[in-house]
């Protein structure tokens, strides 16, 4: 059922329809619907803490009247559906709530699904991207027993966590539907997180303990988030709001001396007008070595590290219409690892990260269905990396990097009529790098405006249209549209389709930086400074050959990278216990930026600049099936087929350009002119990825067992035979299965939970999978205090 959850665009959708009212006694009403938007009659809706109960009518309608302002919780039960809990603030408006239930599933979830309102700090719904949205709930994460965000993500259909070897030993990123990490935006509570290593965002920086839910948008999402969301987005929504005072502590310990300790607390105050949620997490691990053929003991390929993170969220209703919210987060990571090739070849590699996020928002309800939110966000990321050869006392590399980002945004949500919902906003951001002396262009200023509409012209059809415009100081403006459609062909059959555009502006490095690598003796010149640098080299006689034709073509002509994402699919629920979803996707990336050789020098061996490559395509299909076999047993399957190819490579092979024109297989000794069919695809992408999940609850023991098999087909690791594209003569990670088992037992009315986690039970390791440890066994417990 958890799989089913994720596959759903909307697990729970709560729309606010505040209606202006002069009455002192407030009313809360709402509609309960199923995943296909049909009304759910005879559902029991309980209002907490008042304990009023209402049975929904044939329209799925319920209401509670004579209420005071404050925070309430609704518990919704129906035998054929998974129970939901919704927490909301009742201000001086009568409020209408829409609640969506999932079809009959075991009551395992009943106790634990907290479907809190998802949008307390962001009015933009993820669904407006018109791309498939996969949602992972808190309960799913708990059942997986995962500690870090990368562990959760890599078990999702179509998602992979891969090492980017060329970017260094610490560059790990997430890949979604074939898009690499530098095209995936990562947000926390709707605000972007900084800190990338050559475009790679390392998700292991983030602890999952205080995550309420994760939304994964698969495909271009620039219409929501602007540049960088070219290929998708991951939005992490943290816990907020409190009904009663409670606290929870948890501890896990096991293989690799992995320790994960968390303390969380939440409390309402000022008669439920305010709430505070705080959490702290400590995590450490020894790291591990997947390359013991070359690296001797004491070495690690995945670094040992320790991580602290603290988060606090405060919400306070300052007036009848307005609520203030404050979120602060601090995280730090220290890591030191050793790579030992020989006694005198010991490399010490260290990293220190600091991450601060402060978000402030003010949410105001106006009359006639207008809601406004003002958001200010400040974030800072700082990292220091070094690598040193110990015997020689020589630094192999050192880098220190820090940046700030300020963002101010004004959002509007407006429901002029019942079947039309508008979300609009405008704002600006300023990104400032610490090191200002190199160039005055090291700050990036962006201004943006957007409008999203959700319109239901008839009951069976929902359309979404989105439009966003971004303007930056270093690059031209860009418009990102999107269009989505959901159509109920039959009661149990829903058609979904969407199309959207994404972009990523060239960065500072690609436009202005002049970089010389003395050890490999090459020069990379930012596109805008190409003419100046080439002229300079020419005048001092340091130029031996340049491709002037290409330079004239390239200078000042670097375009933003663009994507165009399309998907179409069906959700089919033939019987209530079986849900299937199938879709095909087609992503086209134009103008991908890559380096190109434009000449040679007399002292500098090779000169490079950046140019746009014609296009790349990620296409494939996704399938999700979820089956409730019995009340206590659920099975699910997720599958992705993917073909990711750089069409420029195919062009080069067809044109016979060096070095693409050769096929060398050192193993077979085959050596010939290459053919387009030799091209396998882009590195790190598997053709086939699948996951099988089983969840069983044994009620007499209050014990659940969750078994997941994550299967990946073979994928290319590195191009090694010198022709610049992947063919079968290159190095691959073989197909493999990672089997994870988690057992959970609840005691004392679920106040105490014991958990046993066994990840990668089969112990699969490979020297090309630097981030995948062998078998890991962890045991732990969590305890919850509640003030009744």
């Amino acid at each position, binding site marked *: 059922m958890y799989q089913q959850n994720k596959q759903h665009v909307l697990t729970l959708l709560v729309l606010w329809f505040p209606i202006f009212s002069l009455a002192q006694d407030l009313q809360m009403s709402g509609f309960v619907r199923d995943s296909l938007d049909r009304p759910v009659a005879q559902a029991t809706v309980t209002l907490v803490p008042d304990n009023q109960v209402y049975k929904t009518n044939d329209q799925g309608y319920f209401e509670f009247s004579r209420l005071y302002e404050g925070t309430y919780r609704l518990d919704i039960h129906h035998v054929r559906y998974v129970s939901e809990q919704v927490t909301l603030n009742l201000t001086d408006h009568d409020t209408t709530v829409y609640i969506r239930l999932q079809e009959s599933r075991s009551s395992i979830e009943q106790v634990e699904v907290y479907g809190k309102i998802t949008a307390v700090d962001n009015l933009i719904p993820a669904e407006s991207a018109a791309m498939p949205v996969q949602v992972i709930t808190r309960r799913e994460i708990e059942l997986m027993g995962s500690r870090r965000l990368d562990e959760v993500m890599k078990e999702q259909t179509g998602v992979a966590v891969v090492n980017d*070897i060329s970017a260094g030993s610490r560059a790990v990123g997430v890949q979604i539907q074939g898009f690499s990490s530098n095209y995936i935006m990562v947000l926390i509570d709707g605000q972007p997180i900084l800190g990338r290593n050559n475009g790679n965002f390392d998700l292991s920086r983030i602890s999952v303990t205080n995550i309420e839910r994760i939304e994964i948008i698969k495909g271009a999402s620039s219409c929501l988030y602007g540049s960088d969301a070219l290929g998708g987005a991951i939005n992490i929504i943290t816990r907020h709001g409190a009904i009663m005072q409670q606290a929870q502590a948890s501890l896990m310990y096991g293989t690799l001396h992995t320790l994960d300790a968390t303390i969380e607390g939440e409390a309402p105050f000022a008669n439920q007008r305010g709430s505070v949620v705080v959490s702290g997490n400590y995590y450490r691990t020894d790291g591990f070595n997947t390359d013991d053929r*070359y690296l001797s003991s004491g070495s690690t390929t995945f670094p040992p590290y320790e991580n602290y993170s603290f988060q606090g969220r405060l919400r306070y209703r300052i007036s009848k219409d307005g609520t203030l919210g404050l979120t602060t987060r601090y995280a730090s990571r220290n890591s030191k690892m050793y790579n030992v090739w020989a006694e005198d070849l010991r490399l010490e590699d260290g990293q220190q990260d600091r991450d601060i996020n402060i978000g402030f928002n003010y949410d105001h309800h106006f009359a006639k269905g207008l809601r406004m939110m003002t958001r200010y966000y400040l974030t800072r990321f700082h990292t220091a990396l070094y690598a040193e050869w110990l015997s020689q006392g020589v630094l192999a590399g050192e880098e220190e990097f820090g940046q700030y980002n300020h963002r101010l945004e004004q959002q509007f949500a407006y429901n002029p009529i019942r079947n039309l919902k508008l979300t609009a906003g405008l704002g600006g951001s300023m990104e400032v790098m610490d090191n200002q002396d190199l160039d005055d262009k090291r700050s990036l200023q962006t201004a943006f405006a957007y409008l999203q509409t959700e319109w239901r012209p008839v009951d069976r059809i929902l359309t979404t249209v989105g439009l966003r415009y971004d303007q930056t100081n270093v690059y031209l403006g860009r418009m990102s549209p999107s269009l989505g459609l959901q159509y109920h062909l039959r009661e149990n059959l829903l058609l979904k389709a969407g199309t959207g555009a994404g972009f990523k502006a060239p960065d500072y490095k690609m436009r202005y930086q002049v970089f010389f690598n003395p050890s490999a003796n090459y020069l990379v010149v930012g596109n805008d400074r190409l003419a100046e640098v080439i002229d300079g080299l020419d005048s001092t006689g340091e130029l031996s050959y340049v491709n002037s034709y290409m330079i004239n073509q390239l200078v000042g002509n670097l375009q933003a990278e663009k994507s165009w994402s399309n998907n179409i699919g069906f959700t089919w629920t033939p019987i209530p216990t079986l849900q299937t979803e199938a879709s095909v996707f087609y992503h086209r990336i134009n103008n991908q930026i890559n380096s190109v050789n434009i000449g040679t020098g007399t002292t500098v061996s090779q000169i490079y600049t950046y140019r746009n490559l014609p296009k790349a395509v990620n296409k494939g299909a996704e399938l999700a099936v979820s089956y409730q076999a019995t009340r206590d047993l659920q099975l699910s399957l997720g599958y992705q087929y993917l073909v990711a190819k750089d069409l420029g490579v195919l062009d080069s092979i067809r044109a016979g350009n060096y*070095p693409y024109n050769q096929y060398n297989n050192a193993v077979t000794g085959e*050596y010939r002119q290459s053919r387009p069919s030799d091209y396998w695809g882009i590195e790190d992408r598997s053709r086939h990825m699948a996951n099988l999940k089983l969840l069983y609850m044994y009620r007499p023991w209050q014990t659940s067992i969750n078994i997941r098999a994550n299967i990946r087909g073979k994928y290319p690791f590195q191009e090694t035979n010198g022709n610049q594209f992947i063919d079968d003569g290159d190095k691959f990670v073989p197909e493999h299965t990672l089997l994870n088992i988690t057992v959970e037992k609840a005691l004392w009315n679920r106040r105490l939970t014991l958990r046993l986690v066994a990840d990668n039970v089969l112990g699969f390791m490979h020297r090309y999978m630097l981030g995948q440890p062998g078998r890991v066994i962890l045991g732990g417990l969590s305890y919850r205090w509640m003030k009744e």
Partner: protein
Amino acid sequence: MHTKHMNTLKIIINECRNFILLGKISLGLALTLPMASCGKDDNSRPLYEDGKSNVIYDLAGDTEASMAGDVEGKEYRPFNIFLFRFHDQRQIWIKNANDSAQWLKTKDWDLAFTGPYNSELFVNNAYHEFNPGYGGETENTAVVLLRQPYEAVVEAPSDEEFDTSEVNKIGWAATESSPGWFRYSLQTHIMQALPNRTYAIRLPDGKYAKLQLINAYKGNPEAVTNMNWPAPYYTFRYYVQQDGSKNLNTREP
């Protein structure tokens, strides 16, 4: 349109294959967990030893210069040249003017490893400019690049081919016409030996030889998993036909 249908069909067939795979794996899981433990590794290594050739593993170049290479604030020192002699497999370092005077213009070496990461090779020659042996006593030497696997080279080219060959520096193969032995990928920053480049060499004493450069990284790994992987450590193999004939066959008889 036809190909489109074919592609769709392929996708469907591939999907089916995967379901069969899934079925197999689930069965495997249910019956014997360890059986499904890992897929086969098809990254098998070619064997370099053939019983006739000399295979040199991990010959260390100027690793100190490479380690200090791209670090700001450190003095950038050029890589020291080293020479290599085929008949006794001796490595000779050229670290100062005395070394140069003693060795460079003599016939007592065959290969010079120069330039960044000692990656630019020269076969001792008195007539080619920039050759470390330029102006020395090594006459008659020449190199011909054969775009064939090492094993496939069974005979040295004609003397006419040697005489007309322009091959001097053997380094980065940036262009099609370059006689270089490796490519440096700007995406991965890795030196990749081109597997099908074999160098036929005419030595000062008129004997014929063949040479293949295999790897520049320590341990001769098939793929490098760390950007700081120690380099240069040269793995290469060569064969000198001692009887003076052009027979360079190193396959088992």
